[in-house]
């Protein structure tokens, strides 16, 4: 009896709910026209406050893409090179990739990668030692255990070269991705992402000494927004809209850090907010180009210097044409 009464009451309520939903949806359609342009962006790692990721998150949340008439599907890579495979397969139109990796993959196996904006104006990596170790310069690394991830990177050799240290004087050790191999004394020098591990270790009370390639005049660049030559030919309007919106998002984040961190936390709810803030502030500092240029600026001189360094330390299979690895056609003022 009661069940029949409830069912009788629910039927008209359900119809009313449906009608209201249709009207509201139609209203939304009228107020905000559906974007005509579509694009898939894949961040090169999990959701976090890497500056190029933040640019996309902020552009999405503040409606900057929508203002450009662009709908962006945001995806995240699990690390590795799957984002590059998906990019060259055309499943993704823009991804983030380190400038040195872009050159390396362009040279071998010949991926047609093109940087449309250089977000990290200096390299992402640094080397740290416990301050208590007494190491002050890379010259002190002689005889030490120095860690590397995967393969010894060229900037390590460049730093050693600049400091006049023979690499044979060190013991190079392949380390994983847990920085505690440094704090437990398993290695003396550990490679870090500047915006990540130093903060993690500092919060645990460890005092570190850090060195980065740029300190020794070694050219290094950070993350880029990368696409392919095919995408530039086929989707120039979408790429221009994406670049405008994301660079505006980064500019906004640079003056509204707390708000930008709030946005990041929507994408990375499990992340530590203070750590995300550290990451964002560190990358903002490394992202502002010299000479007053806007975020994303890149020049042939920067790419040529990076290529020369990679070639010098045998980290590049062969030289590539620098003017083909980047374009400024989507940046403001072009």
């Amino acid at each position: 009896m009661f069940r029949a009464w409830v069912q009788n009451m629910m039927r008209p309520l359900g119809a009313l709910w449906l009608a209201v939903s249709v009207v509201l949806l139609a209203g939304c359609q009228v107020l905000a026209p559906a974007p005509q342009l579509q694009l898939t962006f894949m961040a090169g790692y999990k959701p976090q406050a890497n500056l190029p990721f933040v640019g996309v998150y902020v552009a999405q949340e503040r409606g900057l893409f929508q203002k450009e008439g662009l709908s962006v599907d945001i995806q995240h890579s699990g690390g590795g090179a799957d984002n590059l495979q998906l990019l060259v397969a055309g499943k993704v139109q823009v991804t983030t990739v380190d400038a040195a990796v872009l050159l390396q993959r362009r040279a071998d196996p010949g991926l047609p990668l093109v940087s449309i904006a250089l977000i990290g104006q200096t390299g992402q990596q640094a080397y740290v030692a416990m301050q208590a170790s007494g190491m002050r310069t890379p010259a002190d690394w002689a005889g030490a255990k120095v860690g590397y991830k995967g393969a010894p990177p060229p900037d390590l050799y460049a730093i050693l070269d600049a400091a006049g240290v023979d690499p044979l004087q060190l013991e190079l050790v392949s380390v994983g991705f847990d920085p505690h191999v440094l704090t437990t004394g398993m290695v003396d020098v550990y490679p870090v992402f500047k915006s990540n591990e130093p903060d993690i270790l500092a919060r645990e009370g460890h005092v570190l000494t850090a060195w980065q390639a740029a300190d020794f005049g070694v050219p290094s660049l950070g993350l880029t927004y990368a696409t392919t030559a095919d995408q530039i030919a086929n989707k120039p309007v979408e790429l221009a809209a994406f670049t405008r919106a994301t660079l505006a998002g980064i500019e906004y984040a640079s003056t509204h850090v707390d708000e930008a961190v709030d946005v990041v936390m929507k994408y990375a709810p499990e992340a530590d907010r203070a750590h995300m803030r550290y990451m964002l502030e560190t990358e903002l500092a490394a992202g502002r180009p010299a000479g007053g240029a806007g975020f994303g600026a890149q020049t042939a001189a920067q790419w040529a210097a990076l290529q020369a360094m990679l070639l010098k330390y045998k980290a590049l299979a062969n030289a590539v044409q620098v003017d083909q690895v980047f374009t400024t056609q989507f940046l403001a003022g072009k």
Partner: protein
Amino acid sequence: MKWSTAWLNGGVVLCVLASWEWWVRSLDVPVYLLPGPLAIATAFGMHSRGLIVGALVTTGEALSGLVLGSLFGLLLAMFLNFWERLEPAVMGVALFAKSTPLIAIAPILTIWLGFGPAPKIVITALITFFPVLVNSLTGLRAADPAVHAVMQSWHASRWEVFVHLRWRAQYPYLLAALKSVAPLSLVGAVVAEWLGASSGLGQLMWLAYNNLNLPLLFAAAVVLSLIGSLLYQVVVVFERRLYI
């Protein structure tokens, strides 16, 4: 295997490889998305030394972990055979160890055991011990109840029942577990190396993948599959010898 059967199977494999090569060439599939068999064969030639060294390292770690894990699983099964009341607690801990994602514990093991082969061996042992434990325990309890009743009527001790009845009854179960975990041990070693190592096929595959050198990645995978097949066949031969 008869010669005609061998030719037939060889022919099928060759047809598959030829079709694969024709397909990637005719569709012009880039080598960084899917390499053809010829590109993989070329990678074998170019990186033969690295593949051989890596195979030796990984096989050594896998075999060490396999022996360690299997012995541990077997001993635990024997222990539970005599102390059945402890089974819920022991199996609970074993399930916890089995269910913990290796990716989470690999860095901790490195900190505890160093950068050498020890953490890789422990991870492999963690992967292999559980199937051996479960199968051995099942086998120990699968002894013929009629024979068991006869032994009990002879006042055989629990140890005598174990040695003369249960131990033999678990052979097929143990061998089935070993056939399953022998190739699996390679997966454990490779996963551990993938997460940080100075050598081994896992490290080679990690570098190849990050450099998008897919021919080398596939070549290493082929080497792994050959070693896995070899380990499986070793157990099969051992099984045959045991029953002939």
